[in-house]
């Protein structure tokens, strides 16, 4: 897993260069937006993968971490004039601590119990934020408009800086995920996934590594949340804390290929543009056909290609050799 062939390295470099060049070639606002959403969900998918893909903790509550990140940096900026970059770190830490707080009591839960518990947890967070006056309750928060600069993490005239920031976040997440999985932690996580008893027998502290995974995953997801707040400049519980966001993240990882580094990225590059462009093309007819196609895609992939598109690609790659 850790070793790359020169061909693979070359491929990654080409893709990265192409992504860096993209805004220089394609000038439209909407394509840039679609790419930013692709990066954002890919990043959350990569973060989810640390839990679900490597440690079999199927979290359906990532929206809670996303929301905590978005709200923390925004509240700090609005009430205490704290720079959003610092807010980003604070939000990440808060999300990681929340993840730990929920992860410790849930550490005995496996499989579906964990999935349901994570939904329940995220719903509690949503309901509380929806009624909590200090965070704007249901009315939400409009961010104060600062002059545009990288330092202020805010741009008004163009989306391109947002594009590069999100791309950098994504690359960082992939790197962290790769680093963890090629090192001992990843080995432990996989051992836990394969068998709890085996892992215990090997003397792996089951609880501790699960906790690490939750915390890192929560931190990265919260980073994406802060990004969302700085990008949309408005947030309310209905746009950042709802179950469909958590589900979207799971689907991105699952469709691309859970438990692989690049799987969630592949999943996001298919799903996000698909849902954005089907909305544009089919949404105005008001029928929901786009969502039906989406449902069919999920059914087909999970029933007939459960290793995801990445699994399919590697299988083809091997056959080609």
């Amino acid at each position: 897993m850790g070793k790359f062939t020169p061909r693979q390295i070359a491929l990654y470099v080409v893709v990265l260069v192409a992504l860096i060049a993209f805004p220089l070639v394609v000038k439209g606002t909407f394509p840039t937006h679609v790419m930013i959403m692709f990066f954002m969900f890919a990043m959350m998918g990569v973060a989810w993968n640390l839990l679900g893909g490597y440690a079999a903790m199927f979290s359906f509550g990532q929206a809670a971490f996303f929301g905590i990140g978005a709200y923390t940096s925004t509240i700090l900026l609005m009430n205490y004039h704290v720079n959003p970059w610092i807010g980003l770190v604070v939000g990440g830490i808060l999300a990681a601590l929340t993840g730990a707080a929920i992860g410790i009591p849930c550490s005995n839960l496996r499989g579906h119990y964990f999935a349901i518990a994570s939904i329940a947890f995220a719903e509690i967070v949503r309901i509380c934020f929806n009624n909590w006056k200090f965070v704007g309750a249901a009315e939400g928060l409009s961010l104060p408009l600062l002059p545009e600069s990288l330092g202020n993490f805010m741009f008004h005239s163009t989306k391109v800086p947002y594009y590069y920031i999100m791309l950098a976040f994504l690359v960082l997440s992939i790197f962290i995920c790769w680093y963890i999985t090629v090192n001992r932690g990843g080995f432990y996580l996989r051992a836990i996934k394969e068998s709890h008893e085996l892992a215990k027998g090997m003397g792996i502290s089951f609880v501790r590594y699960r906790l690490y995974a939750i915390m890192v995953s929560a931190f990265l997801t919260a980073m994406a949340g802060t990004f969302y707040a700085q990008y949309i400049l408005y947030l309310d519980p209905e746009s950042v804390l709802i179950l469909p966001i958590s589900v979207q993240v799971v689907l991105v990882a699952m469709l691309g290929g859970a438990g692989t580094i690049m799987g969630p990225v592949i999943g996001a590059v298919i799903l996000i543009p698909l849902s954005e462009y089907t909305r544009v093309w089919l949404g105005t007819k008001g029928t929901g056909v786009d969502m039906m196609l989406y449902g069919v895609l999920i059914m087909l992939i999970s029933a007939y290609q459960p290793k995801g598109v990445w699994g399919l690609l590697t299988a083809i790659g091997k056959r080609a050799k």
Partner: protein
Amino acid sequence: MRGERGRGLLFVLTVLLSLSMASAGVAADKVIKIGAVYPLTGNIASTGLDCRRGVELAVDIINGKYPDLNLPLAKDAGLPNLGGAKIEIVFADTKGEPRNGQAEAERLVTQEKVVAMIGAYQSSVTKTASQATERLKIPYVCSDSSSPALTERDLKYFFRVSPHDAIFVRDQFNFLRDLEKARNVKFHTIAALYENTEFGSNVGKQILKVAPEYGYRVVADISYAANATDVTSEVGRLIKASPDVLMHASYITDAILFTKTFKEMGFNPQGITTFAGYIEPGYLPAVKGDGNYFVIRSTFALDLAKRKPLVAKVNELFKKKYGIDMSENAARSFTAPFVLADAMNRAKTTEAEAVVKALLATDIPGDQVLYPWIGIKFDPQSHQNIYAQGTLVQIQDQNYVTVWPFDSAAAPVIWPFPPWKSRK
């Protein structure tokens, strides 16, 4: 191989080039493109589609010749000062999500080249969409979102025609005061019941703020989740508090559920005045006679036709086009295209700065508006229509009947609320 690929590329380029020339050709044909963002799929798609009907009819009237309609630009085809240019609405679906509101507004402006924007319905989506148009310097006229915060942002390009929730809340208190005078009764206590998304909690906040000004005591302040499966505990609290009047801000699902539960548990205050949910087109077909006697805030009711022949004429066109009566949502969204077209016509251009200037000078008289207003004129600072006000309708015999202001009422209000037990 290489040659083939080159030819392919050439082909793509040719197609792109011809496409862009085609769109330039359309522009020369004097079409004014206006973007409209609405929730056309997803949870509240039925409302979004309803709004779209209102907008489409408005555009038909502007573009066609309707000499017998007293509406701005109805008599001429298109916009006469712009050489008869026609309005074309480019719709986009938000799915009701703020992030899509922003993305679609940006796409419509930068790719579809719309010169103005309308819509959104949900206030949170209007917020992000109008933020985007503000940044892109494109005028936005909204006639269907009711959060007071929208016109407290001091945006330069954003205008609102319709009344907002603070106005609607005040209307209901004025109604109670008028009723006290007219019927020689006295109310002492109010209960505020509201769903806890943005819309409901805003209304709740306003009720709590305004009630003391009118000398009413709030005996119950209940917020609840609009997607609740069961509301018996909420109604239990209401029965315990036993207010003279209940004010209820709801969406449609909870309006249906509460109506059924009020009946089941026998909740009988002197009167129930409500917001939004009870006037959605889906409400009455679902609850039938149980909806009678609820009082609802409104901007529009078909019985206004008695005093305003315009309403009947527009509804006739609406019915011909869609086979159903015009609803409150459709009627609200109907007005924004007129306001924009009127401003562009006076400005003789679609250039944003000039249109904004013309919008600020808007002065549409009341007889050219579908609602019982003095007219349309924007506050120079907030850009809220200063003449916008609500009316109250009551469901009587399964019809929406205008009952307040008393001088434009089609029928007297039935008050107090007849006990459920005595109803069939």
